[in-house]
């Protein structure tokens, strides 16, 4: 699933022989921002310096989990905003992102197990995982801690859903 906002960014892909691949792009504020994917699977987040665009202000090594979480944090609001926009004409319906927190009873269990629709009248329209969007997930999808669920429902329904995901 391609999100609309990806279209306007020109990502530059530079091979780093012996190391991996650098993917970066210039942001409107003038800096370069991107990631280095190491051959051994490591991921580094890079941000260029303002006074010297060739150099890096920071290069932050991230674990797979950390980069996935960051991807979710960055990507989810966009998706929620998009869905909110689409539901604007239906009063009382809201879109919200709800996490599967660490220690949630549904970490390792399926979407069907939550009985979300029955218990709260809330629909899970998408799951964000590892920076990727899984649209219209089926009841067989297994959750893991760190997943972000994009949920649509009433205000009360969403509050109940958040509680359900946290405490079961």
């Amino acid at each position: 699933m391609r999100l609309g906002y990806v279209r306007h960014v020109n990502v530059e892909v530079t091979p780093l022989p012996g190391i991996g691949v650098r993917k970066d792009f210039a942001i409107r504020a003038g800096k370069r921002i991107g990631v280095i994917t190491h051959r051994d699977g490591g991921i580094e987040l890079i941000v260029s310096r303002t006074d010297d665009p060739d150099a890096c202000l920071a290069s932050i090594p991230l674990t797979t989990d950390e980069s996935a979480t960051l991807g979710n944090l960055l990507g989810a609001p966009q998706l929620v905003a998009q869905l909110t926009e689409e539901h604007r004409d239906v009063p009382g319906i809201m879109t919200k992102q709800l996490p599967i927190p660490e220690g949630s009873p549904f970490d390792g269990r399926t979407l069907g197990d939550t009985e979300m629709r029955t218990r709260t009248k809330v629909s899970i329209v998408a799951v964000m995982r590892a920076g990727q969007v899984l649209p219209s997930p089926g009841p067989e999808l297994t959750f893991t801690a760190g997943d972000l669920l994009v949920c649509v429902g009433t205000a009360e329904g969403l509050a109940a859903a958040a509680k359900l995901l946290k405490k079961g």
Partner: protein
Amino acid sequence: MGSTALELIQLGAVFFGLGLLGRLAQRIGMSPIPLYLVGGLFFGHGGVVELHIDSFTELAAEIGVVLLLLMLGLEYSAAELVTGLKRSWVAGAVDLVLNALPGAVVALILGWGPVGALVMAGVTYISSSGIIAKILGDLGRMGNRETPVVLAILVLEDLVMALYLPILTAVLGGVSLVAGLTTVGISLFVVSGVLLIAVKFGRFVSAVLYSEDREIFLLKLLGSALLVAGIAAALQVSAAVGAFLLGIAIAGPAAHTAAQLLEPLRDLFAAMFFVAFGLSTNPSDIPPVLVFALILAVVTAATKMATGWIAAARSGVGRKGRVRAGAALVARGEFSIVIAGLAVSSGAAPPQLAALATAYVLLMAVLGPIVARVAEPVAQRVMKPATAPTAA
């Protein structure tokens, strides 16, 4: 005490000592290579304590060279080598001319003849990709724009090594000009053949060697490397070249796993190789060539800086980035010693060459990381007064 017991004790003491030296190097943030060399000098002929573990050291050092070159071949895929050649051959040519010349000139001045010149040209030319990769990682420069330029130069040096080593071996073997040219022709043919095979059929080479089981893979890998190296040596092509070409031919995920598996072995045997090289160097040979080593250090640090500056400028990198690129390339290390080692063990080079190479690598392996660290702030200070009037 039996001779085996004595050898075990001596070998154990050497490894333990190297471990302590490695820890010291890590503490002060430098490459362990110069300390290993010093360790070898300390124990060698004319050193403080003389050790006699020749039978093992000799073979271990030889395996060390094979593993160093195999890992160098594994480092870059054949596709990367070909792309590097297409994109940055100009920078590669500048690198070759600027950095091989000083070594050759000094060798001629010292009266070591064309063979000595060829050896020293290689010693001063080749940067240490091991030290440099570590510098770039430690200083957080992987995402910098000049880093692909630095890596491209290392890739090209890799390719040049593939041609240089067979030529060097032929020359050191004392062949005639015609036979020498034939060897060059053959090595060119073999290298391009291996590159072609690696690009088109690298998967098959990898598939034959690869195994899910780490133990089996390691044995197959090490076995094939020693086989190829031995056969290459028997055919009068250097063992190192055989291992290197095998490394290039192994591609993809297999290459990555292979590198991970071999790394500790490489570290062990390469350490033995550096010690053995230090052992073969007589410390009393060093003072007479020290001045030349110092001159070479200063000149070839400057020529690598120039190489980096020119290469980075060609890729549109700014002035600070050009300084960083040049400074990163200054370090010389393992491969300079490999080249000098080939020359010394063939007996075609004077013993002073080992002393000069040792002193030179000692200087450059220590200086390289320091230069890489301080070049930018220093350049900033020097450049500021120069750029201030234009800015005002």
